[in-house]
């Protein structure tokens, strides 16, 4: 597909051919002004391609823009309930999830604040919450981390890995190359007007803090395939394994192990300091 602005404007993207599988995390890279946001808006179904088309059933989609200065006459909770209902939730369900996500991002006390009075960071939390409360099949994040505080960034990392583990497709752009490193299944780079594969950061190579989990499974069972965060494995004696994963993925990984059929037993958990880098 291709996209340009205006009837005779230059092509921003052309000849882009891309398939997005379920349960995958896709990173889009590129310099400023190369068309990353244009690509994300096409993928989110907000804009239509000028040539070519997007095929397949349109998944339930949520989009988080980079800056969300929503000068709308609603309170944060009121806005989230409206968006939840547009996403197809019932009113009580939407209100419950709005409260839940605002608390997760540490913005619960702003639920009754008018959107126009929120700080830049808290507005961004509302933008992220509207996307996550819908449990979308396709989540598109255009530098959604920008403006969030450290705790909220970590929470968003965890929320993204959880939704990928739950079967969603997440496409994101972020200027921090370490963002969700090791977790992205595909990395794409916008070059010129086209899209090329970029090498995703290898698993375990992230410099951030990681968590080592010692697990034991029932005799003869293999680790479930497609574990969140693509953990690095090592044998730990008497049938146990240690799995090392970026700490953003640890909750999703534990969840996947405990809910596997048959479930795995967690023996111990330990934090691995961030300066240690196995890939070096």
């Amino acid at each position: 597909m291709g996209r340009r602005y205006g009837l005779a404007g230059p092509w921003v993207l052309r000849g882009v051919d891309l398939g997005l599988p379920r349960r995958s995390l896709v990173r889009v890279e590129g310099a400023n002004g190369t068309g990353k946001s244009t690509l994300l808006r096409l993928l989110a179904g907000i804009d239509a391609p000028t040539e070519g088309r997007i095929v397949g059933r349109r998944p339930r989609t949520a989009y988080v823009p980079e800056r969300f200065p929503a000068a709308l006459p609603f309170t944060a909770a009121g806005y989230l309930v409206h968006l939840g209902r547009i996403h197809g939730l019932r009113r009580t369900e939407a209100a419950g999830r709005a409260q839940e996500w605002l608390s997760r991002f540490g913005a619960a006390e702003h639920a009754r604040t008018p959107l126009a009075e929120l700080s830049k960071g808290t507005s961004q939390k509302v933008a992220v919450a509207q996307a996550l409360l819908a449990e979308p099949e396709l989540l598109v994040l255009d530098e959604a981390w920008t403006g969030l505080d450290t705790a909220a960034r970590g929470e968003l990392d965890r929320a993204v890995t959880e939704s990928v583990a739950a079967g969603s497709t997440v496409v994101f752009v972020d200027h921090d190359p370490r963002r969700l490193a090791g977790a992205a299944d595909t990395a794409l780079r916008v070059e010129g007007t086209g899209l090329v594969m970029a090498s995703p950061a290898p698993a375990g190579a992230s410099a951030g803090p990681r968590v080592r989990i010692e697990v034991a499974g029932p005799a003869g069972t293999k680790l479930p395939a497609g574990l969140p965060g693509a953990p690095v494995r090592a044998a730990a004696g008497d049938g146990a394994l240690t799995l090392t994963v970026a700490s953003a993925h640890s909750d999703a990984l534990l969840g996947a192990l405990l809910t596997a059929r048959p479930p795995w037993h967690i023996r111990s958990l330990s934090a691995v300091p961030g300066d240690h880098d196995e890939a070096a």
Partner: protein
Amino acid sequence: MTALLRYQAALLLRSQRWLAPVLLYVAFLGVGVRSGQPVLDSLGYSAAGLLPVTAWIVQVCVTQEPPAARTVVAAAAGGRPRAHLAALLAASGCAGLLGAAATAVVLLISEPASTDHRVEVPLPSAGLAGLLAAACCVLLGAAVGALCTRPLLHRRGWSLVATVLAALLALVTGGSPAKYAVTGLVTGSHTGTVHVPVLPLLGAVAVTTAAAALACRLTSVRG
């Protein structure tokens, strides 16, 4: 679609940007409609005023969100066209309620007679004709509003000039369903005959559907 309509209507009501067009309409009625005037004359006058007011309300509705909020809603709603259609419908619905209220007031305070007070005009059929004429004007106003703002015209100045001109033309050009409906009421008032504008209403529905379809389709290309 219900959730989108509720969202757009809530935005319109809470933003208070509906106040200016509604106050203008109330002032317009205050100038031209008096208690005891012939009913068909007053109905024609109140219907004609609805056309520019509806165009204004439509433009308020489709430009009231910041662009970032619009992209968020478009993704959730399954594309910009659906979100845009919801804005057009919410605005037309509000204008329709305004028109129905105005028609009811006119029916209550006017004299059920022809202009020369000789022929009696039956109120039920006058009411029906008034409602249909108001519907014609609301629909054409919505078409004017939809065609004279984003996604077709993004600059506010051009948008205003185009809206004023198009609304005027829609009221005075021969063949316009709104002109036909309003003229039907006013000329009918001379002889005391009620012309129920069914054909103009069908024409207005067709024109507005085409205008709304064009505007909605263009939103995913021009924003």
